[in-house]
């Protein structure tokens, strides 16, 4: 859907407030990047420069095309072409008020983008955690993506290689972890498959032992007009409701727990010695808090609801 002009600002600010209320940890995409990105989309910063405001019908999250426009502007902002001065903007405004306004908005947007972090379309990063005997190395990987359904996802992996990493991962002369683009391609193809399957693929691809694997989703963001999944009470779409969910497969999860009222449980392929943990938190406004609590309670799940706005 495309948001009407008058609803773009309230939408972006509501999503920012909801994110701030949830304050997601590092299992999710970086909060500051999400907030900076949304600030760029806010008409208070960029006017209508980044319109149309495309939003997913099914998740209520900003669409890739909308977010991508901010990325493109960020590239232009960093090229250092120089911002127009106040006098130049005033002169342009005298000649054509609309053009002057647009140039002024572009300057404000570029100033913001020069210091902003943005959500990547896809990105894989990693660090070396520790190096043990015979070069055994523990590394942490984080793969971020704007998923096809417009939710934001981070897949985190802790893995240990039996010797010095080689192939898709290696340690450079400065001691930093280097990652082959082929591994990013693998994540992009399989970021949404079950964690158990992803774990075995990563094991095959890196030759290491996966110790911990998590996937954190930011979104959906339900509000009137967003199509709710089957089985979800309509009352949950009557206000503003941001989801933040995480699933973890790890050796240190000793007892599996399921606190997610939306995702079905399918732990048939959880590897021996691993546990699974799932939870979903909500930021609620507009009177949907009680409906969410009731929905969770009906499924025997302890509700984790934070009010915002």
């Amino acid at each position: 859907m495309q948001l009407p002009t008058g609803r773009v600002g309230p939408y972006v600010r509501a999503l920012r407030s909801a994110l701030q209320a949830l304050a997601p940890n590092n299992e999710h995409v970086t909060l500051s990047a999400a907030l900076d990105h949304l600030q760029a989309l806010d008409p208070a910063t960029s006017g209508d420069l980044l319109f149309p405001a495309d939003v997913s019908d099914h998740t209520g999250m900003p669409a890739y095309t909308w977010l991508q426009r901010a990325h493109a502007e960020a590239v232009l902002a960093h090229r250092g072409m120089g911002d127009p001065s106040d006098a130049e903007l005033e002169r342009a405004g005298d000649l054509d008020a609309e053009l002057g306004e647009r140039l002024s908005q572009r300057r404000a947007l570029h100033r913001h983008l020069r210091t902003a972090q943005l959500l990547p379309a896809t990105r894989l990063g990693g660090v070396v955690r520790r190096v043990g005997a015979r070069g055994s190395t523990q590394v942490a990987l984080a793969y971020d993506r704007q998923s096809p359904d417009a939710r934001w996802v981070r897949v985190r992996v802790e893995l240990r290689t039996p010797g010095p990493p080689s192939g898709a991962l290696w340690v450079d002369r400065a001691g930093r972890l280097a990652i082959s683009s082929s591994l990013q391609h693998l994540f992009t193809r399989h970021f949404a498959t079950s964690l158990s399957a992803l774990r075995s693929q990563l094991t095959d691809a890196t030759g290491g032992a996966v110790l911990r694997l998590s996937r954190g989703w930011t979104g959906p963001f339900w509000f009137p007009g967003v199509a709710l999944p089957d089985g979800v009470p309509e009352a949950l779409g009557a206000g503003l409701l941001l989801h933040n969910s995480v699933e973890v497969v790890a050796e240190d999860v000793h007892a599996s727990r399921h606190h997610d009222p939306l995702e079905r449980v399918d732990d048939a392929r959880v590897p021996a010695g691993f546990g699974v943990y799932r939870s979903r938190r909500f930021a609620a406004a507009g009177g949907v808090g009680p409906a969410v609590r009731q929905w969770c309670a009906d499924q025997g799940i302890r509700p984790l609801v934070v009010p915002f706005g």
Partner: protein
Amino acid sequence: MASGDPRQRYLGEQLTHAVLQRRQRAVADQHTKAVEQVAGLLDTQRDLGGELTEALATLRVQRTELDRMSQGSDASLLASLVRPFTARRAALARRSIAEGLLAKYEHVSLRLRQATAFSDELKLCALELQQQVDLLHCERTEALQNQRTAAQRLIALEAEFEALSVGRLTPEERARERDRIEFDRRTEAVALDLYQAAAELGEQHLPAARALRDTVLRLHEEMASFVLGATHTVNAAGRRIQGLGMLADAPTVVRELQESLDELNGAMVATADYVVRSQTLIAEVLPTLSARVQSVAEATEFALQRELVAADREKSRLQAERALREAAVLEIDQLLSGD
């Protein structure tokens, strides 16, 4: 008595030879600066066009690769898309189509944003040039009005001069009045000369200013039209690419991916046409425009210098008389037309 009709005042700044020369230089400088600016804009447009053409070529390569997969000419590649992972080499060897598509989309999107910003730059330049055209019109209108005022004052002075012979004045008074009227008449004749030159100055520079404005307007219109068409297509392709992202690495959607690339390709083909047109503009229009502006500036400067050097009272008197006749004719015309 002040010279001429005191109700008729000159408009604007008092015109002198120095002021007129200053105006001429200012207009010539503005035009030279504008030509440089237009040259810069054309350079940017050429660079931008080159980058867009490059993006087009990359997309074509991507499309060819998808065709090859679709037709099964590379059976091992197509088969590998559905074969489960069995080894590290196989898992890492396979590339993500979604990654490739996103990278291409980002490249095209960046060029489009650049074109959008450039379109605003062109519009601003066109507005500034239009303002120069407006200014030349205003100065010309003002000069014509002042030329008429000078002519009317000269008519009044002529009448005063005629009245001297029938008035009851002493010989000394008559001589003093004759000197005053003669002085005023010569002053007004010079003013008339200057306002005529000012009007001609505006007239001569107007075509070059219009040509500059029209060139930039044409650049803006073409760029704005391209941006409008491409934005819609690129947005549609972006939505499709995002929607297909989840399945992009399955062979079943190769056909849809091809369609996405075709949409982007369509935008890029339009870009290629646009680039060709803008290159023609760069190759043909700018040198002509530049030569025209320079020629007008030189001719005006030369004419003005010649006029000012050659200006003497006798010439001014003759010109004033001609202007008087023209002004009288103009007034009669206006009376007859009821203005």
